């Protein structure tokens, strides 16, 4: 933009640089507190830091320790079990709910609010509530047995092989309403003319959804996927509230592993290396996404 003639050069300079000046503090803050500390963590992960951080580089010892630790194996495996099931089921459930709500039903507003409400709870509340519901001695199992079905069993919470699925269950309950809202917005944004044209041509409704509406919602799928995957990777509070990582360490996730190492065991180097591995997982998901986003804008 060209400044009008006769303006003071100072004002001209301000006009050009005001956006930069305003953005500078937050830019610096992000640089230091996000990228600076990522760098710091990466450095510490290469040292033998225990109680307090040390700065002599010792090589990849912490990563070697990490990858032979059976507890990390469990935690890292759980991340994939939890992440894949949680993302897939929450998205399918969200989509189905959104399509059902899209049928111009009368109480849509009320139902939408009900489904969206779990999102308003913190994961700690969700975890505690589900802990009681799933507790075999207090919740579902005890209730159904109380009705006379003496052989009913639902002890996933206390079964080391199944406990991770209770976390999936609670997380889906919490998030699928939010995914539904995302998809509902997407469904509504599809051009009505195309749908009407398809209906005039006598195409059945399910074909309208599978061939027209859902493909045109690809960006919404991507956003839902990104939101859910970062929820999955950083999951911590839900595990702490629901199972405390137990039985044993059967429901540990990388985030709870890192917390235990850093804050309970005084093993900062180990915690830093697990944090770096978590970050690499995030990068593995986010980088292809950013790449495709940027490329499509260039093209």
């Amino acid at each position, binding site marked *: 933009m060209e400044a009008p003639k006769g303006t003071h050069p100072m004002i001209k300079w301000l006009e050009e640089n005001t956006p930069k000046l305003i953005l500078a503090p937050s830019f610096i803050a992000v640089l230091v507190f996000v990228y600076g500390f990522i760098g710091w963590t990466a450095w510490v992960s290469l040292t033998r830091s225990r109680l307090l951080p040390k700065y002599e580089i010792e090589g990849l010892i912490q990563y070697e320790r990490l990858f032979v630790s*059976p*507890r990390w194996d469990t935690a890292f495996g759980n991340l994939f079990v939890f992440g894949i099931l949680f993302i897939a089921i929450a998205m399918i459930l969200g989509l189905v709910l959104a399509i059902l709500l899209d049928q111009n039903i009368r109480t849509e507003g009320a139902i939408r609010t009900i489904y969206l409400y779990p999102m308003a709870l913190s994961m700690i509340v969700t975890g505690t509530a589900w802990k009681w519901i799933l507790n075999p001695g207090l919740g579902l199992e005890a209730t159904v047995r109380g009705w006379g079905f003496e052989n009913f069993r639902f002890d996933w919470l206390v079964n*080391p092989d199944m406990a991770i699925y209770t976390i999936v269950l609670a997380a889906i309950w919490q998030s699928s309403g939010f995914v539904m809202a995302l998809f509902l917005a997407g469904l509504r944004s599809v051009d009505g003319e195309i749908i009407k044209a398809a209906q005039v041509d006598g195409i059945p409704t399910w074909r309208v959804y599978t061939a027209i509406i859902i493909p045109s919602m690809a960006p919404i799928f991507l956003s839902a996927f990104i939101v859910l995957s970062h929820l999955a990777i950083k999951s911590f509070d839900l595990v702490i509230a629901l199972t*405390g990582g137990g*039985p*044993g360490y059967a429901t540990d996730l990388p985030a709870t592993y890192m917390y235990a190492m850093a*804050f309970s065991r005084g093993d900062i180097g180990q915690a830093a290396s697990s944090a770096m591995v978590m970050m690499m997982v995030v990068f593995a998901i986010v980088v292809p996404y950013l790449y495709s986003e940027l490329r499509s804008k260039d093209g």
Partner: protein
Amino acid sequence: MKSYILSAVSGIALVATTAAFAEPQAEVLHYWTSGGEAKSVAVLQKEFADNGGTWTDMPVAGGGGDAAMTALRARVLSGNAPTAVQLKGPAIQEWYEEGVLADISAVAEANNWDAVLPASIAAHMKCEGTWCAAPVNVHRVDWIWANAEVLKANDIAMPKTWDEFNAAADKLKAAGIIPLAHGGQAWQDATVFEAVALGILGPDGFRKAFVELDTDTLTSDKMVAVFDQMRKMRGYVDGNFSGRDWNLATAMVMNGEAAFQIMGDWAKGEFLAAGKVPGKDFLCVSTPGDGFLYNVDSFAFFKVDGADKIAGQNLLAKLIMGQNFQKVFNLNKGSIPARTDVPLDDFDSCALLSASDMKASSENGSLLPSYAHGMALRGAQAGAITDVVTAHFNSDMSSADAVKMLADAIANSM
């Protein structure tokens, strides 16, 4: 202007008094925030104030001390350590190695601490020969608590060996009573494990395995037997034990739902709070086998600047080890005094048993630090052992696999 001069003068006067008397100042970082514990620490606070000191309380709740340690780390890194910090076991030496602990030998020697503390507990309070911490209490960990009525109704005597325990538990199970009240949290699994290990390995074996981390002992047949007994214990808990808090397990013993609990003597507080009488309603004996596992709370003293703070540190150290505080604090908390010369007239029968066992075991060398409560090993090694113990307890892993995993985990934690 006048008021300015006045305040300046009074300011100078204040500086002069502080320099002359060095009024003791102490900032104390601790995590005793729950009811009984807060009451216990208030006793110390009051004594400190009565002796002319100014106490700045810095309680940090949460995570069984994890949050307090995080706060401590931040304070030390910023070069502004508190005067005294609730720390215990090898963590004291770990902090000493960071070069941040003070030397309070003058107070310790003037008050003859060496003569009144059991030698193995005194060793925890010393950093390379100088005193750097003061103990407040001794919790015994290897207790077995029982519901007297349930045992009587089923004609069972308190078990003296693990075989007797197994026989009693089988009998109780057949009678429809949960033999062992237990909460499936890693530290509770570890508490039961170390009681079993002390019984089966014996005091010397326990020291070799969990203090010295001797590989031969850790992979011995006896260690396999320890895990075998843990597998048996798993059969004696109810199906709903996962994640249960220890005090809920204590309540199960109290109301007769379960017969035994293996837990440190903080469980006694739960019984007493419910109006139960030791020896009549509930029984306390040490777990089968010889030895005494202790969990000693203590305060470590950090390097501070200024005469007032150093005076505060010295006063605090003296008061913590004072007979009066050791008595009042431990009556509140359910533990026993660390010093052996405190009159025990007001203590209950469980505490008296604990005190006499501590004395006897100190003399024959079987007074041992609890690994499960962070007294024997540093965090990384103790955590590695607990991981294996809880993984074994909560799965169908074989004892031989568990022993192999134990050796690997310890090697990996170094």
